């Protein structure tokens, strides 16, 4: 439809239009809204711990005499009354607020007693307000005590038809006892609930010791006490929260591992965690494989209490799974305390002592007002009784005055002028019944006057004495604690770290590979499967050109690794902190892990499980210097490293051995010479000492290996070209002194190459041999025969063209190595072989034959 308005038809010259600047309007409206939300909606008053909505609910119930000793009434009644009288907002909001006050899992001491479905920890909604019933709880009466005695200020309601309290008398410290949560604009509050008895004890202590610290108060107020119990993990957050008003408190579900049945059972969850969502999140973690090993998840909660059951695989570690659950789910929650409250109409974050002070001073005023009210009442009664007394003493005259008066006002006036009475007294006299004139009644009046005199004197004495008010406050608080106090539910345990990474990692044997170029990585030991002698090996690490694997350590994942560098310094790191990497991966540059200097190389890695007394680190330098130092000197580490040995200018620390002090050492050089002497020959020196001479070197010879003599074991030597042998330690004569030139330990020739490494090996050991191009072979030592000290040995490994052996490492015992059965992708690697790996061949058959070349490359889907 077309309109044919003329613009003059719809112009209204009389309407008043003013300009309004956008910025000004925005700021003004925003401030009105935000300040209203902050001061009178979302944040609790420090004195009674109530937000206006909550306070109005309790007050409306109180007005309706809905106390715990009266029958329940429909929630709708309360909601309606609250809306109609005090709270012109949404009914749903009012009902939700009331429901929360009735939930035993939301409030530590519920202020409303509910009847019917009030929701549950699974986040199921309560029944609608037409179904449920509610009344004030017993403790809630203490929130209201003496309110009729005008102990708290009142204000007019929204339509000026009623008065409502600005704050409730709160005869227990509700702000701390039930806590508060609230999101305002630009700020939010989060106060945890506490144990009533503890808070009252703390308050009483504060009354007596107004100068005490937050720390002193924790003697009484140990920490939050959640209605849902659970466990507080660590005390630092509590201390922060009490000292400053802000702190992060870790709360954990209470759980236990039943290793026999392979179950983890949780019986309590952190405060305000929705159980069904929690379980869903656990299920998702299992689905996404973030946590492995969980086979079943059941919620067995019921009337008997909460019970979440998690079943895990037989081969999984329950403790590890539990720690992972704490780490990744709400089974561990952070409760960020922010004790933001309204103090004198302004939002403030208060420390625990400040909260208590505000509460105490408010309570003092409540008590004072109560006595003032009682005093005024007693004085009023006294005043009237004194009038009565005058009247009864002069009863004949009073009667005649009244009889001769024309009206009551006339009688009053004459009485007032005759007996110097007040209007109130005169009124009381004219209202007197004749019965009051009996002797007994006269007696009663006199007795009452005496009593009132006493009472008035007593009240005046109390009001004049601050200490008496304090005493009264203390005794009333203690009474409350005796009546309503209960045992703490939440357990508080000490914790060193939030969750130590260590607990999240399953203990395993790890292979730490370190390259000459300073790349390091960690792999699980079972990645390497045993091959037989003569095998070409598997790729242990891909290195950059000109780089090669220098050291391989088989360690426990939780061992402390001490990294000794060419500069004679030592750094430490837990083994699991070394990034795990695939088999052919290059690893991480050591400079990203340790704060080492330029040109500094890690030359030795020692794994320590425990710093025991009587153990030593024996260090040998390239130039044949030896030093022995107590292991315990290395216990305390600094991030920037520590000096391990004081080196000559052209020297390098190349070998460090972990010894027991009673060992005999063999030090071998590149030219195949070795000395053997007792460790005792080297006296124990301080951490920064220089050391003494171990072996006399000829020409440019240098030390390649140090071995600990063990007569039940043998000495394994291997040359650069892969010629290896075992020899008996007994063939090496024990020198009386250190510093000799030594004897031949391996026949070095052009065919063998120089000596690469020496090892002490047991008969059933596995060893790993590493070439400069990063190929590693793992083989059983049994495959290598025992030869004489000066023999050449057999081919243990054939380094591919141009490469040579640089080191060997012993694996801890021969373990049952699971065969890896996956097919091999070989295109990326220089050595090609499509055969299955791990052909088991007997040593005899395989002696000096072409080995079963086996290559295993790292492919994407290998489950390392």
């Amino acid at each position, binding site marked *: 439809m077309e309109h044919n308005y003329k613009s003059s038809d719809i112009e209204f010259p009389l*309407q008043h*239009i*003013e300009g309004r600047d*956008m910025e000004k309007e*925005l700021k003004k409206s*925003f401030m009105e809204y935000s300040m209203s939300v902050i001061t009178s909606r979302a944040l609790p008053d420090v004195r009674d711990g109530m937000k*206006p909505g909550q306070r109005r609910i309790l007050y409306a119930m109180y007005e309706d005499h809905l106390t715990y000793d009266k029958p329940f009434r429909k929630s709708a009644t309360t909601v309606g009354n609250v809306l109609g009288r005090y709270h012109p907002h949404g009914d749903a909001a009012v009902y939700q607020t009331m429901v929360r006050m009735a939930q035993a899992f939301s409030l530590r001491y519920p202020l409303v007693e509910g009847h019917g479905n009030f929701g549950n920890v699974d986040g199921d909604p309560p029944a609608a307000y037409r179904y449920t019933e509610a009344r004030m709880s017993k403790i809630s009466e203490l929130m209201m005590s003496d309110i009729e005695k005008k102990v708290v200020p009142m204000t007019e309601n929204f339509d000026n038809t009623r008065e409502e309290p600005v704050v409730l008398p709160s005869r227990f410290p509700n702000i701390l006892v039930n806590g508060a949560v609230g999101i305002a604009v*630009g700020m939010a509050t989060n106060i945890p609930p506490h144990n009533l008895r503890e808070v009252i004890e703390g308050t009483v202590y504060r009354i007596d010791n107004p100068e005490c610290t937050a720390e002193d108060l924790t003697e009484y107020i140990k920490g939050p006490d959640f209605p849902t119990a659970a466990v507080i993990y660590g005390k630092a957050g509590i201390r922060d929260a009490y000292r400053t008003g802000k702190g992060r408190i870790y709360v954990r579900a209470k759980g236990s591992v039943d290793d026999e049945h392979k179950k983890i059972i949780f019986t309590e969850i952190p405060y305000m965690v929705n159980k069904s969502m929690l379980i869903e999140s656990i299920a998702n973690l299992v689905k996404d494989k973030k946590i492995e090993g969980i086979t079943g998840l059941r919620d067995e909660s019921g009337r008997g209490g909460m019970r979440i059951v998690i079943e895990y695989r037989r081969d999984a570690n329950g403790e590890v799974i539990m720690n992972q659950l704490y780490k990744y789910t709400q089974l561990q929650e952070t409760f960020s305390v922010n004790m933001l409250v309204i103090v004198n109409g302004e939002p403030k974050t208060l420390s625990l002592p400040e909260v208590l002070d505000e509460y105490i001073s408010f309570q003092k005023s409540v008590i004072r007002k109560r006595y003032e009210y009682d005093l005024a009442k007693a004085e009023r009664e006294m005043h009237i009784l004194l009038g009565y007394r005058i009247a009864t003493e002069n009863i004949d005259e009073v009667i005649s005055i009244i009889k001769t008066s024309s009206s009551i006002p006339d009688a009053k006036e004459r009485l007032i002028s005759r007996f110097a009475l007040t209007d109130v007294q005169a009124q009381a006299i004219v209202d007197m019944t004749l019965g009051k004139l009996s002797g007994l009644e006269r007696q009663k009046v006199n007795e009452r006057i005496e009593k009132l005199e006493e009472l008035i004197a007593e009240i005046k004495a109390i009001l004049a004495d601050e200490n008496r008010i304090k005493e009264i406050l203390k005794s009333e608080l203690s009474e409350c604690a005796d009546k309503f106090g209960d045992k703490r539910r939440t357990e508080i345990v000490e914790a060193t770290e939030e969750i130590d990474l260590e607990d999240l990692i399953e203990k395993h044997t790890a292979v730490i590979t370190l390259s000459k170029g300073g790349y390091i990585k960690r792999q699980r030991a079972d990645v390497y499967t045993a091959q037989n002698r003569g095998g070409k090996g598997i790729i242990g690490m891909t290195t950059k050109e000109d780089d090669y694997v220098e050291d391989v350590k088989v360690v426990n994942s939780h061992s402390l690794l001490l990294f000794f560098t060419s500069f004679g310094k030592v750094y430490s790191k837990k083994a699991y902190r070394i990034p795990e990497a695939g088999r052919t991966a290059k690893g991480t540059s050591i400079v990203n892990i340790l704060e080492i200097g330029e040109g500094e190389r890690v030359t030795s890695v020692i794994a320590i499980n425990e710093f025991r007394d009587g153990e030593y680190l024996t260090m040998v330098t390239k130039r044949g210097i030896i030093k022995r130092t107590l292991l315990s000197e290395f216990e305390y580490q600094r991030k920037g490293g520590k000096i391990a040995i004081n080196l000559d200018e052209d020297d390098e620390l190349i070998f460090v051995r972990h010894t027991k002090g009673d060992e005999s050492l063999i030090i071998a050089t590149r030219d195949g010479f070795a000395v053997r002497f007792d460790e005792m020959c080297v006296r124990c020196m301080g951490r920064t000492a220089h050391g003494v001479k171990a072996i006399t070197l000829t020409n440019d010879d240098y030390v390649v290996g140090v071995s600990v003599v063990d007569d039940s074991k043998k000495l394994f030597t291997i040359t650069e070209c892969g010629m290896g042998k075992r020899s008996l330690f007994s063939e090496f004569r024990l020198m009386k002194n250190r510093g000799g030139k030594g004897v031949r330990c391996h026949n070095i020739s052009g065919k063998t190459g120089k000596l690469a490494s020496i090892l002490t090996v047991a008969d059933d050991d596995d060893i790993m041999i590493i070439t400069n191009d990063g190929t590693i072979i793992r083989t059983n030592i049994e495959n290598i025969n025992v030869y004489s000290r000066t023999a050449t040995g057999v081919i243990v490994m054939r380094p591919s063209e141009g490469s040579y052996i640089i080191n060997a490492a012993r694996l801890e015992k021969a373990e049952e190595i699971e065969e890896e059965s996956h097919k091999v992708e070989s295109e990326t690697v220089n050595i090609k072989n499509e055969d299955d790996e791990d052909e088991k061949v007997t040593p005899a058959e395989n002696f000096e034959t072409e080995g079963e070349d086996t290559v295993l490359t790292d492919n994407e889907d290998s489950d390392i």
Partner: protein
Amino acid sequence: MLNVEKARLDKVYSNTSIIPIIQALGCGIGDDFDITKLRYGKIIIMADADVDGSHIRILLLTFFFRHMRPLIENGHIYLAQPPLFKVHKGKNVRYAFSDEEKNMYVKELGEVGVNAERYKGLGEMDPEQLWDTTMNPETRTLLQVSINDAIACDEAFSVLMGDMVEPRRDFIRENAKYVENLDI
């Protein structure tokens, strides 16, 4: 009403409170905005006279500022001025738009037995009352929203309605003492 300052664009365009506004104005939004297609001369925001009304008003202003700024620049956005108080004694009723005016009417009606009620929402008024006090073009007062300093406006919207909490808290702290109307 959605806070468009914090919401992603697709959320804004699919919001069920915003779509009717876009449809009613007929002038499109964002790149398609065409002021010549605007179907109304005056777009009047009429919100409750309480602080929640203030909140809704700034949410709407944020939307117009961020997504239909020419409407403001061309003076199409107005704020209605509903009365803040109803002052009455018997059958005598006065509507006051400020505290001063309220006090004046209270005096005028003779103080004793006079009631002055603070309006909380538009819903408290009969349609007839609403027409008389707020909507009748012959007598109403409108505030025409204008942008005096676009940069300052932009910054104010970012601080007050944006993602960052810190600057908002600072702003509240600095301006707390200037607040006039509080809903207690």
